[in-house]
């Protein structure tokens, strides 16, 4: 029993949960009122769109690519949500579908031409942002009522953000980690040649993952605009780096298709809570983004420690 509890594998997968508890306990201790339904709702509200964006990033990371455009893509979706989707729903839906198709095409382009995804998505980040600026030059717009209703749902007992985060994590976990095609998808990140030799189309796995990223990025943008009720072109730019950080914090690796959906959700929540943690500690908000950096470094240092111990043992 003790052996399993101290095994490298267990420690690695428990690390995201442990870091979350480490940051949640002091918050509860310093401000017990956050333990209420309302407090948790307030604390974790913004975690939903970030968790969805993190999932999108994770799909791309699974096939050894990196998406530097997810932040501006989420911004664009939020802008579409606050304008077209509200005024002319048909046009809005068509635009969102077109965005997802573009994502799939990007996956195909990266695979067929063997391009570095980091550069292609870097270019796309300018394109998405440009489109968002064209659509909504000044902050404004209004979220459709139905999205706001969903995002302000009063669920019984457990606050909505927690349920939503759990649902996202578990759904993706079963899709990617437990299904047979999920294994193929992850295999395409681990060893594309082997997957190709086994008769699977690597092109198809790449397109699938990019389309999934497009879908989850869209959900992220829509949930964000549901919370903020209006949008602007720069609303989610920081999601790009935050999503990468969340995946890595949750136990994902840059290569080899090693990811953990539930870990990534926990990682995201940890990063989101870092800000509240500082304000409860009465530390100047100047250090808010710095704290996210520090958490990343500390958790990854711990992981390196676990890995090293495991390899010498």
């Amino acid at each position, binding site marked *: 029993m003790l052996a399993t509890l101290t095994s490298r594998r267990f420690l690695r997968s428990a690390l995201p949960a442990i870091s979350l508890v480490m940051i949640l306990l002091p918050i509860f201790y310093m401000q017990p009122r956050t333990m209420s339904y309302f407090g948790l709702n307030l604390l974790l509200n913004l975690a939903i769109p970030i968790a969805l964006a993190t999932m999108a990033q994770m799909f791309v990371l699974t096939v050894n*690519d990196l998406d530097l455009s997810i932040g501006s893509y989420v911004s664009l979706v939020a802008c579409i949500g606050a304008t077209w989707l509200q005024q002319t729903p048909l046009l809005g839906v068509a635009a969102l579908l077109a965005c997802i198709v573009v994502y799939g095409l990007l996956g195909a382009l990266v695979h067929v031409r063997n391009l570095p995804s980091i550069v292609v998505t870097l*270019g796309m980040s300018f394109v998405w942002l440009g489109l968002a*600026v064209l659509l909504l030059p000044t902050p404004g717009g209004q979220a459709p009522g139905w999205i706001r209703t969903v995002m302000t749902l009063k669920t019984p007992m457990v606050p909505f953000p927690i349920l939503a985060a759990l649902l996202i994590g578990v759904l993706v976990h079963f899709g990617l980690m437990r299904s047979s095609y999920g294994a193929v998808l992850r295999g395409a990140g681990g060893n594309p040649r082997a997957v190709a030799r086994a008769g699977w189309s690597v092109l198809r796995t790449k397109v699938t993952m990019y389309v999934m990223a497009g879908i989850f990025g869209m959900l992220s943008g829509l949930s964000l605009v549901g919370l903020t009720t209006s949008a602007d072109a720069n609303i989610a730019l920081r999601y790009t780096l935050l999503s990468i950080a969340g995946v890595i914090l949750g136990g994902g690796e840059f290569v080899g298709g090693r990811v953990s959906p539930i870990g990534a959700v926990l990682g995201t929540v940890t990063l989101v809570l870092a800000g509240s943690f500082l304000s409860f500690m009465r530390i100047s908000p100047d*250090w808010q983004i710095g704290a996210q950096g520090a958490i990343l470094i500390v958790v990854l240092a711990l992981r390196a420690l676990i890995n090293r111990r495991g390899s010498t043992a």
Partner: protein
Amino acid sequence: MNGLSKGMPRALLEKAWLGSFLAAAAVWAAAMIYSGGQGGGQMLGAALSFSTFFVIVGIGQMLIIATGPGNVDLSIPGTIALAGAIAMKVMDGEDSLIVVGLAASLAAGAAVGAANYGLIRVLRIPPIIATLSSNLLVQSTAIAYGRGLRVKPPPAFADFTTATVFGVPVLALCAVVFAAVMAVVLARTVFGRSVLAIGQNMRAAWLAGVAVDRTRLLTYTLSGLFAGLCGALLAGFSGGSSLDMGMEYLLASIAVVVIGGTSVAGGKANVPGIWGAALFLFLLLTMLNTFGAGAGVRLVMTGLIIIAVITMAGGDKPAR
């Protein structure tokens, strides 16, 4: 799959950097035709001025990208902001303190770079995440340090950063010399050859006796140093430091390196191409501006061109 086996022939490599200059010239000519030959010199002067800053950080970014897949410096924006704030605070508007201030900001930049490699090497954190985390920390430091900072640059420093000789910015001339020196360093020194060797195959380079750790440490330190230099100069050029003045350099530094013909797969670097790419990107935006295009169209065009360039150049080996 291997970058070496399909390595571009030298002639093609040279064509790659020529291309970015030709593109820059074409864009300039198009803007000239549209405006009927008005303000062409001014446009070039402005392009040289602004490109200077992109070239300085671009060369640092190039050294890191050339050491192989996954290596990238995302801490440039924070470093620029911090170095700018430090330069302005130390100089305190006094001409006599210019050298001290410049030294302080360079030291800060180099320290950030060295710390980045420390995270990568000691804690085994992937470079993207290591530099991303340190960027967050450095940016926070810059915010806390530079809060309420309203110091103007010393007159002599401001004059130097905005001076021109026959319409050519002095800073741009310095940056041309700087780029030439770095091109020689890359092609002729042990350090330069080591960078390229590591980029082609780190393990092979190590087995061949290349000081891998020292070289990589130096690339990250130099990138930080150049970002520090850029921050100090930018603060002088724009009449004071601001906390978000480094923002656009995060993606732009990568863009100029890639458009300039440096391979993201590593092992292939191109210094002149960075100048061409920086001029091209700036002139492109100016051209779209003269055509009356709004900010949105300019962004979309920039993005599409980056994608078009990389699609045409093709990837012989995916970096990620």
